[in-house]
């Protein structure tokens, strides 16, 4: 196919009238999908909710459980620690969201999934340990399934992050080279 002038597409787009107000509205709609801006009461609700959750997990429950801790079996203790740890992390996230005043759907959503994932792994380990020591095959099996699935997801995630980070560094390098090439291709400016 025959070549078009290099700037043909850009000039064609420039011909089109675009209502800047509408474009701005659209950008705001997209921003609303990406993040949820919190009102002042909602920010306080998040911070207070987070603090309450932390106090409950790290102070209140341990105080109640402390006296009875020795009576509990390993599995009950593990469940308690995992549940409290997970809830405490969610509390910390809530405080962070309240402090920033913005709930970033993708980032904070990923954090919550991460916490749930860690809790599943902890649960898997507790099940395997208890099942092993009490020679309970079903418990070992259930725990192993959780660990294998969780482990696979974790390894895939780590590998992907490593891959993305490497690719990003390479692209940053490529970008610099492309900028340099563009500068060299540009005709020298007359003084």
């Amino acid at each position: 196919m025959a070549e078009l002038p290099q700037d043909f597409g850009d000039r064609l787009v420039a011909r089109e009238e675009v209502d800047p107000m509408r474009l701005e509205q659209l950008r705001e709609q997209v921003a609303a999908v990406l993040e949820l801006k919190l009102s002042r009461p909602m920010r306080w609700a998040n911070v207070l909710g987070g603090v309450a959750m932390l106090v409950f997990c790290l102070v209140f429950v341990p105080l109640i459980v402390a006296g009875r801790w020795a009576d509990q079996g390993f599995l009950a203790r593990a469940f308690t620690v995992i549940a409290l740890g997970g809830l405490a992390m969610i509390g910390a996230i809530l405080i962070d969201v309240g402090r920033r005043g913005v709930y970033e759907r993708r980032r904070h959503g990923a954090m919550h999934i991460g916490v749930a994932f860690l809790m599943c792994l902890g649960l898997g380990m507790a099940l395997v340990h208890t099942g092993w020591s009490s020679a309970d095959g079903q418990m070992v099996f259930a725990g192993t399934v959780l660990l294998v699935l969780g482990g696979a997801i974790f390894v895939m995630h780590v590998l992907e992050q490593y891959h993305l980070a490497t690719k990003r560094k390479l692209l940053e390098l490529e970008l610099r080279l492309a900028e340099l090439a563009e500068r060299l291709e540009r005709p020298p400016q007359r003084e």
Partner: protein
Amino acid sequence: LRTPRDAIYDELLVLRWRQAGDRAAVEELLRRWDRRLLYYIRRLVDDDEQDAWDVLQQTFLLVVRKLHTLREPRRLPAWLYAVARNSAMAHRRSNAAADARTDGAVEVEELTGPDDAAEFSSDDVEAVHAALAKLSVSHREVLTLLFLQDLSVEEIAGVIGVPAGTVKSRAHYAKRAMRAILQREGVGHG
């Protein structure tokens, strides 16, 4: 024209979104593409302004939701146009306007325009922009994608969902139709 630098920068923005959910990256990406996508969408929805903005909105929402699934960021332009096209088609279907409005559009068979001898020059931009509206939807679509210069023929084929050969022949006839329109309207061509 998209320079290699533009392509790399777009890829970086996609990676920033995938790696860390960087909101600013996806917003910048959409800013870089909004006018080009709107241009294409307007050609698909017969210049109905409200429809065009609805489709662009739908496109952006889909991009935000699905961008992390784009495994090859190098394919971003083709992917964006495909998302825009799918949104436009869904919108047309929902408007029960799927029967392509070809009334008044210039059909290939009626034309006796010159062959590919003369290409379009920068001076033709305004006339080409106006004439696009007079082509049938399928011709308008393929020419718009060619003229925007973001995609190769193979990528256009992927967006439209036809073989590359079909894109070439469709583009050939669409250009003939366009030249015939330009000639008819007295724009020096052919």
